[in-house]
């Protein structure tokens, strides 16, 4: 049974993995990150830091970039340590990981090492006078993993940063968050209210995979939501293709 997706309340904390992520390279299944033998019991804080910041497992293998370490590489060491301490308090789930279903050549894990040389880079993506907003959007919030298009190798296209992307689930497009998109008409408060409540300024409700993101951001502080909104308002404009 997949944990996570659509789970409410207490069930949200059963991080046994299993949620499927459809991508052009195949289907990925989120792993078990609970403190159980099937999960990450026995990992040190350094192991978690290597996984999040460098995409390397304790056995030294490279994770597939569907695990958003190209964003997480920007996470501050103290936040990794806090995250580890928190994960250790969660209920263990005994669920064996589902193998990914990938097409050639993406099914060769070794190619991820080369991929990282090309795309793993913790420089700030844009110039910003809003370090908190930048940290949350480019790092922890991993907004670009959905809102930025990818090149043929699956790397994020920094020239179209947060400018919208095909929807990996099929129909529709992930919206453009730069001032060339609908957000041009939204105020900083409108964006921050959307991230808290899921309501657009017209009171349409967020749908699709953004619902889960809003569910999580509704637990962030108001200051953090405002910092994210200010970062988005200051993005370089990139028109829709």
């Amino acid at each position, binding site marked *: 049974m997949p944990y996570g997706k659509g789970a409410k309340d207490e069930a949200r904390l059963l991080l046994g993995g299993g949620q499927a992520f459809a991508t052009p390279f195949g289907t990925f299944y989120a792993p078990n990150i609970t403190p159980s033998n099937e999960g990450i019991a026995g990992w040190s804080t350094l192991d978690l830091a290597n996984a999040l910041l460098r995409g390397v497992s304790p056995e030294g293998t490279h994770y597939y970039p569907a695990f958003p370490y190209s964003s997480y590489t920007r996470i501050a060491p103290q936040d990794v340590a806090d995250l580890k301490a928190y994960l250790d308090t969660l209920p263990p789930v005994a669920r064996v990981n589902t193998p990914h279903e990938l097409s050639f050549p993406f099914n060769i894990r070794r190619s991820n090492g080369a991929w990282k040389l090309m795309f793993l880079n913790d420089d700030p993506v844009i110039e910003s006078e809003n370090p908190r907003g930048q940290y949350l959007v480019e790092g922890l919030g991993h907004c670009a993993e959905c809102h930025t298009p990818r090149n043929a190798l699956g790397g994020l296209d920094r020239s179209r940063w947060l400018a919208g992307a095909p929807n990996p689930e099929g129909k529709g497009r992930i919206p453009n968050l730069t001032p060339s998109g609908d957000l041009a008409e939204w105020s900083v408060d409108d964006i921050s209210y959307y991230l808290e409540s899921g309501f657009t300024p017209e009171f349409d409700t967020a749908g699709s995979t953004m*619902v889960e993101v809003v569910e999580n951001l509704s637990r962030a502080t108001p200051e953090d939501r405002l910092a994210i909104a200010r970062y988005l308002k200051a993005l370089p404009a990139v028109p829709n293709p």
Partner: protein
Amino acid sequence: MNIKKTLIAASIGLALAATAYGAAHSPISARQAAMKAVGGQMRTLGGMAQGKVAYDDFAVISALEIMRDAAASARPLFPAGTEMGEETRAKPEIWADGSDFDTRMGQLLASLDAAIAAEPADLASYRPLFGAIAGSCKGCHEKYRAPEN
């Protein structure tokens, strides 16, 4: 955005319009017009829940009634075979998941009926009723509505 659709929904914002429109047009444009009419009432209902607009019980009940009729008219407009075309954002899972979609439509209608019957007299009694309605929009859009193209 289709101008005709916008005009029809905006000029009256009534389910009646959506129904009349539905008789002459495909189920896809008809359900989009009906959903737009549902959405149109959220401005009143959401603005009050948010505390941006002073609470007005009469305006709330009228908005709820219009929304109820619009939602009821949208319910039968998702026949099998309408997952493609006319920029529909309806996801194929609607038809793949059996009766879950229709059950959710039923839950939206039930939450609207409950709010109308409760005749909430003040903001405190209105807010949880609004929360149940908004929760059913979100839950269904999460599973069954694709992002805009």
